[in-house]
């Protein structure tokens, strides 16, 4: 079936099998493999994207559900070479090891900070509890969130 969707600000079309997920559409049909497939069950958050501004696991959304709607992915965060503050913070804090969880976490953290610019630590933990990371033990990810939050508040001030 033919899907028309606006991805990172650009209208795109692709012909997919009706059972395909939004994750498959992005990764395999639209050359946007930044969103990762690590479970296809909604358990790991590696595939996190925004659908009409709402954070979703794209593995749990059918491609067809994105018909005529707007999708924002990790690839849409950096402005060319200018990284988003959350991306910068992940690099600086050492929150990236293998990096497989990183795109999903960066999307989830960005979403959190867009809604809550100064989240307390329990709130951060709760918000990121659906994003699995097998490498870091999460300590440096928490550091990255604080760093990004501070930077984003400064940026807005």
């Amino acid at each position: 079936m033919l899907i028309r969707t606006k991805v990172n600000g650009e209208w795109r079309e692709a012909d997919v099998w009706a059972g395909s997920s939004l994750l498959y559409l992005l990764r395999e049909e639209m050359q946007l493999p930044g969103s990762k497939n690590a479970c296809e069950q909604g358990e790991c958050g590696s595939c996190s994207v925004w659908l009409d501004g709402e954070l979703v696991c794209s593995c749990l959304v059918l491609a067809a559900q994105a018909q005529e709607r707007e999708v924002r992915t990790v690839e849409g965060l950096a402005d060319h070479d200018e990284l988003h503050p959350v991306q910068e913070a992940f690099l600086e804090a050492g929150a990236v090891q293998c990096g497989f969880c990183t795109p999903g976490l960066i999307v989830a953290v960005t979403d959190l900070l867009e809604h809550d610019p100064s989240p307390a630590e329990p709130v951060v933990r709760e918000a990121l509890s659906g994003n699995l990371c097998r490498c870091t033990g999460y300590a440096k990810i928490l550091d990255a969130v604080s760093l990004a939050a501070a930077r984003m508040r400064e940026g807005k001030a």
Partner: protein
Amino acid sequence: MGDTRVRERTRGGIGEDVARIDGLPKSKGAFAYASDLWADGMLWGHTLRSPHPHARIRSIEISAAVASPGVHAVLTAEDVPGKKTYGLEFADQPVLAWDRVRYVGEPVAIVAAEHPELARRAAARIVVDYEVLPAVTDMKEALEPDAPKVMEFGNVLRHVRIVHGDPDADADVWVEGYYETGMQDQAPLGPEAGLAVPAEDGGIDVYVATQWLHVDRQQMAPCLGLPMEKVRVYLAGVGGAFGAREDVSMQIHASMLALHTGKPVKMSYGRAESFLGHVHRHPSRIWMRHGATRDGRLVNIRARLLLDGGAYASSSTAVTGNASTFACGPYEVPNALIEGTGVYTNNPPCGAMRGFGAVQACFAYEAQMDKLAAVLGIDPIELRLKNALSTGSVFPTGQVIDGTAPVREVIERCAAIPLPPEEPTGPATRDPITVPGGAQNVGHGEGLKRGVGFAAGYKNTAFSEGFDDSSEAWVRLSAGPAGPLVEIRSAAAEVGQGVYTILTQIARSELGVERVILDPSDTNIGSAGSSSASRQTMMSGGAVQLACGAVREALFERVRAREASSDPAGELRLEAGQVLESELPLGPIERFLDEPIEETRVFHHRPTEPIDERGQGAIHVSFAFAAERAVVEVDEDLGLVRVIQIAAAQDVGSALNPRSVEGQIEGGTAQGLGLALMEELQVVDGRIRNASFTDYLIPTILDMPPVVSVLVEEPEPGVPYGAKGVGELSTIVAGAAVAAALRNATGRELNRIPVKPDDLVGLAEPPTSSGPPAAPDVPGPRSVPEYFGLGAGQMEILANDADDA
């Protein structure tokens, strides 16, 4: 020129918190992991796997699958072009099963189709006629004489016997214990994946996520019936490894399909298949007796270890060796008898996972130390300090520690980390998210008990028992458009641990040049050995250091030849892009680089010895030690646990990138905590019942406490920069420390990890044992397949490399 000024240091060298060189693309979603690869006209591969733990294959009918839409190939064992088996240590594993399947999940047939769903559907139309055979799925039963045989030669893979001092020596006090550990999974987030592209020369180019390119190739080429040089393996982005990528998964299958169809073939496992498609941590059963004097000196240790290797050898030989040689922990003991057995069963194959045999042993010996402390009425930390190894101590294998061994320091420094403050208990006294069970809002802070547990442990760095896992590196220094440039080539696999960054830091420090680039890792250079055994910083770091040293010498020769004014006795040095003589600048490095300089070097660690009939020998290269303390809170009504804090002190030799070392400690701790509290593959009658992230739980950000870590730096003599391997230790001690804290909180035995809620509330009885199995009859201390002349896996790489040289 010639004046003394405060000069710049080369930035980004060793000892600094340098940011990862692959961090930028990883944060942008632009880093190409193996599962992201794509080629024009590419097909998707899929694997059909055995549903039985043990069965005879009567026939395989593929015609319906071949006729399925979009299908380009359906291949079975008959289509394997060369050798039909492969394996890391022994080639005992069929590329595709013929005649017999030995575990649930064993590959039987492979399909290539135009869409992954078409490939899956076609595979479902393959009809395999199985005759189900009796299976052996219990590691102790596997040693009984009438047990079904997994291999023709029986079920014993290896039996190690270590005799130290007088094993009959008596002691004032004895404590005894029986311990079990479950089957843990590495669960790297990136699935097994790769792309095989047929080449014009009849060979194949394979892009894959692996830990060791050359050992993959060395197993792939014979099976594909190709000479080594026609199999070129390139490292694709690796989404974590932890041992799961030491063995071949889809490499040979995708190559067969690509060679057969003449098209690129991609294979990427889903999560459920990933759980079937790689080896796991060996489940273990361990019996220990510790004898000590009344004042707390260890006198004698008896240890009997049993490890379930599953259906194929993988690296079980080495894991059995490690678990056995480490069985007494980081303590001095004058007498010991240790016997360790690795067995074949019809369970999923087990092999490498972070900690590699040391994890299981540590859980048991640290529980024993606590028991002994309780019986003697000595503080558990004091008991450990009293018996701690140090330089000059002798292991039960007779090996003398000649490197650094700051065991006392790691114990003392860990114990000195401040405990977290007490928190109020009782209903509505604090945010529910901070009580065990957290956001599930099941408990409200009633019946909470706090416990503190301590564990120390150790492990070797690099491969053991006579194995020369050398590493090669090529370094080129040239004048680039923006100043001097260093280029490094190494086959070391970056699996997330940060080896690429370390290699560039080493080059900066050695050559005084900030611009360093790293070529992609592939088999066009000599082997770098595996990204495992905490060895890459030492081995590939050592190779880069050697190659840089050779480049520097060549550069200095040029400098001396050209600079008439140069004082032959003056000492030359490179720093921040300058050549310095006796600390005075002679000029920028690129002035001497009209021709680039290139050098290749191979780093070998010092030789080790095979283990002998009495388990004796200097079998390991170097040792690192760690201690962790866990503070937990247990809800005694609901069996829920919250880990409040982990304190860690680790012997790192010297920290080349302190932040990355901390990252290893934190990540490794999470995996140890996972093993203690939640991570277990539920294998029932040979079947994994929880092959998903819904049912196999790994720690989330809500499960992880703050990890307060201290790096103990005592440089190790004879290794590059004195740096010890840092990847595995925290996993080894974290599980034991958390289990000890749970015992402390509940007063229960908790002799099996993972500890389950039922264990904590007393609904489940602790496992007991009717006693250890008798020692099996084996031809010698090496692995049994060797005595039967089974083709070696890794061992062949040495022979081949020797032929090439």
